[in-house]
């Protein structure tokens, strides 16, 4: 044995004969053992203390926040829930644990709507370990099934998207697919925000929405119309307080809705708005200086523009001034005013009013208006009374809000404005112009000869303009099918809200003496809407004859042979 090896052997197996040395070696070994053990314990100890201290350690927490966060809710402007999540219990079974499948099927069948006893038995005898029986178990059925005590039946927790307000604002809310991905409306456009668990607050007010929807529905039923739409816009902020499109659908049963019901007429539907455009035409003529309020236009003879002949519904033998053209809704007068404005200027105003482009709303369902590429003389003339250009009711509301409100075009929105929001504002009309337009719109409703007198909601100073357009069909216009529109602004002495309502294809009724014009079909709905929503909006009724109100209106108009008065109804 070499001496080196001997030394190592001594360390492991010391030579017996030297007790002192062997004791030393033993002590050395013990010390090493102690240190190693101590080291291990200290390591484990510090790790334990460390783990116990770190409360939000990602390795330990069972859920990773953010990924599993529940989809955010959609609320109305007052915080009322329009879309939310409902916890549901998923009922599933493990057929291999079933003791008696036919007995279980018989017991379960009365509680499950989508299965009968036969189909259940087939499911429960499958050779798998998981069959889903119901995805939307209500708490009541949950406890009932639990009480049956069937072995092999299990419950799991899940959640579904619900729209508790049924039809209200269905088109705006949109829908999600089974994987909770937004596929329409706000659900689609705000998907990333909602998916991260954040709530979305809309500009819509549920109460106003409900009033407008039900009043439009009433008129649709009364006049056997095929549809309707309505928009309520806040003139000062551009917030859309209500957007209704009828027929609508129950978003909780989206798959049952027809394509027609899913179509959003208020923002995606394009219509020739007819005479309601005369409001814009008047504002443009006054603002551009092409006409003054007392200027008279010769309307006694039909106007010929290339191949068109423009006539008036009620011919007038005397020249009409600008307020009379609006109150009597003269096509010839409007056409003459538009000719004085000129094609280029008119097109520029239409562009500024956002009527040539799609509205940048927060939903995907918006359309680009249909307007002629080349703005000829005929275009200028027809656009003056709302033909040759097709826009959505939302477009109309936002343009009229500019012409009859603050004079500014404000970017409309479906989301509630926050305090530091600075929406796009374009100054288009002066205060004088809008005051004149408002006063004339008021006369359309308050004057005895006005076309919109059924919209008079006493005390609320409603102003408006009717529009009854023949519907476009292949190759021209259908003389029998109408599109009745009404655009209202109230209160006219302090403009705050604009309502645009459209009823598609109303039919003349006995109670309307055969008329299916906007004055008969839409104006009464506007009156009822204003009477119901004004208290909600905090608009107080005023005495129209009080000097305080009169000084806010323009009154130096002559309508017919008399000076225009506000309280002429």
């Amino acid at each position, binding site marked *: 044995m070499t001496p080196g090896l001997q030394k190592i052997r001594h360390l492991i197996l010391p030579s017996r004969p030297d007790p002192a040395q062997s004791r030393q070696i033993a002590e050395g070994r*013990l*010390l090493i053992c*102690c240190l190693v*053990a*101590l080291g291990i*314990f*200290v390591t*484990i*100890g510090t790790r*334990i*203390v460390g783990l*116990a201290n770190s409360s939000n350690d990602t390795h330990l927490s069972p859920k990773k926040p953010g990924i599993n966060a529940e989809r955010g809710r959609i609320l109305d402007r007052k915080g*009322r*829930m329009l879309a*939310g*999540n*409902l*916890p549901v219990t998923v009922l599933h079974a493990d057929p291999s644990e079933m003791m008696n499948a036919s007995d279980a099927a018989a017991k379960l069948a009365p509680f499950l709507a989508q299965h009968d006893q036969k189909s259940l038995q087939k499911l429960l005898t499958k050779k798998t370990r998981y069959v889903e029986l119901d995805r939307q178990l209500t*708490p009541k059925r949950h406890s009932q099934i639990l009480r049956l005590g069937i072995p092999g039946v299990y419950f799991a*927790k899940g*959640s579904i998207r*619900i729209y*508790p*307000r*049924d039809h*209200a604002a269905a088109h705006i809310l949109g829908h999600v697919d089974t994987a909770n991905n937004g596929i329409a409306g706000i659900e689609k456009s705000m998907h990333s925000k909602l998916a991260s668990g954040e709530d979305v607050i809309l500009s819509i007010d*549920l*109460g106003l929405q*409900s*009033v407008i*929807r*039900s009043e439009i529905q009433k008129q649709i039923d009364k006049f056997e119309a095929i549809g309707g739409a309505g928009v309520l816009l806040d003139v000062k902020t551009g917030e859309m307080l209500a957007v209704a499109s009828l027929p609508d659908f129950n978003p909780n049963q989206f798959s049952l809705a027809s394509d027609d019901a899913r179509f959003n007429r208020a923002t995606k539907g394009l219509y020739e708005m007819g005479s309601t455009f005369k409001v814009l035409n008047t504002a443009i003529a006054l603002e551009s200086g092409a006409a003054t309020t007392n200027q008279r236009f010769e309307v006694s003879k039909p106007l010929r523009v290339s191949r068109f002949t423009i006539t008036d519904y009620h011919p007038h033998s005397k020249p009409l001034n600008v307020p009379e053209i609006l109150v009597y809704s003269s096509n010839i007068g409007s056409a003459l005013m538009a000719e004085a404005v000129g094609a280029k200027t008119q097109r520029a105003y239409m562009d500024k009013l956002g009527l040539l482009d799609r509205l940048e709303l927060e939903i995907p369902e918006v359309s680009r208006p249909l307007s002629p590429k080349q703005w000829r003389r005929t275009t200028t003339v027809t656009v003056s009374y709302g033909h040759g250009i097709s826009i959505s009711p939302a477009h109309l509301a936002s343009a009229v809000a500019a012409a009859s409100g603050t004079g500014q075009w404000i970017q409309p929105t479906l989301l509630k404005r926050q305090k530091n929001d600075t929406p796009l504002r374009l100054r288009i009309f002066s205060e004088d112009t809008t005051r004149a337009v408002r006063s004339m719109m008021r006369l359309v409703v308050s004057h005895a000869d006005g076309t919109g007198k059924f919209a008079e*909601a*006493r*005390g*609320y100073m409603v102003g408006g303009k009717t529009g009854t357009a023949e519907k476009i069909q292949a190759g021209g216009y259908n003389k029998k099918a109408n599109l009745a529109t009404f655009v209202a602004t109230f209160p006219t002495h302090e403009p705050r809200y604009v309502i645009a309502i459209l009823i598609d294809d109303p039919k003349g009724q006995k109670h309307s003496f055969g008329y299916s014009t906007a004055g008969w079909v839409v104006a009464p709905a506007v009156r009822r809407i204003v*009477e*119901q929503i*004004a*208290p909600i909006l905090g608009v*107080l*009724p005023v005495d129209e004859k009080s000097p305080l109100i009169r000084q806010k209106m323009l009154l130096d108009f002559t309508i017919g042979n008399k000076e225009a008065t506000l309280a002429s109804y």
Partner: protein
Amino acid sequence: MQLILLSALILVGLGTTLYQVKTSIDERQDLLRGLELSIANTKRDIAVLEAEWAYISRPDRVMALSNDLLKMAPIGQDRILPLNAIPMRINFNAVIDTKIDNANWKKTGVEAKKGNGSAKVVR
């Protein structure tokens, strides 16, 4: 020998602490799990109740109910007034006091107190 004893004691001490820490963590985890479960259950209950409330408080439903059961209808414009249009109520006690004070003053010739000249009005 002392070293061995000392390290043995330290070992025992560490072992005990380790055991205690371990059991306390188990306890706390049980507590945490219980809390999380009850929070989740309460949240589910709240979500169900909120959904139910939203469903039964639909404006059209409430309107139909208030129409049928309470015979309520939208308020007419002639019934709405701003608060400051309501005439103020006269505080008759103050008026009477003033009159009595005035009478006393006439009798005794004592100066009337300030503010007694007009009747106090309250809203």
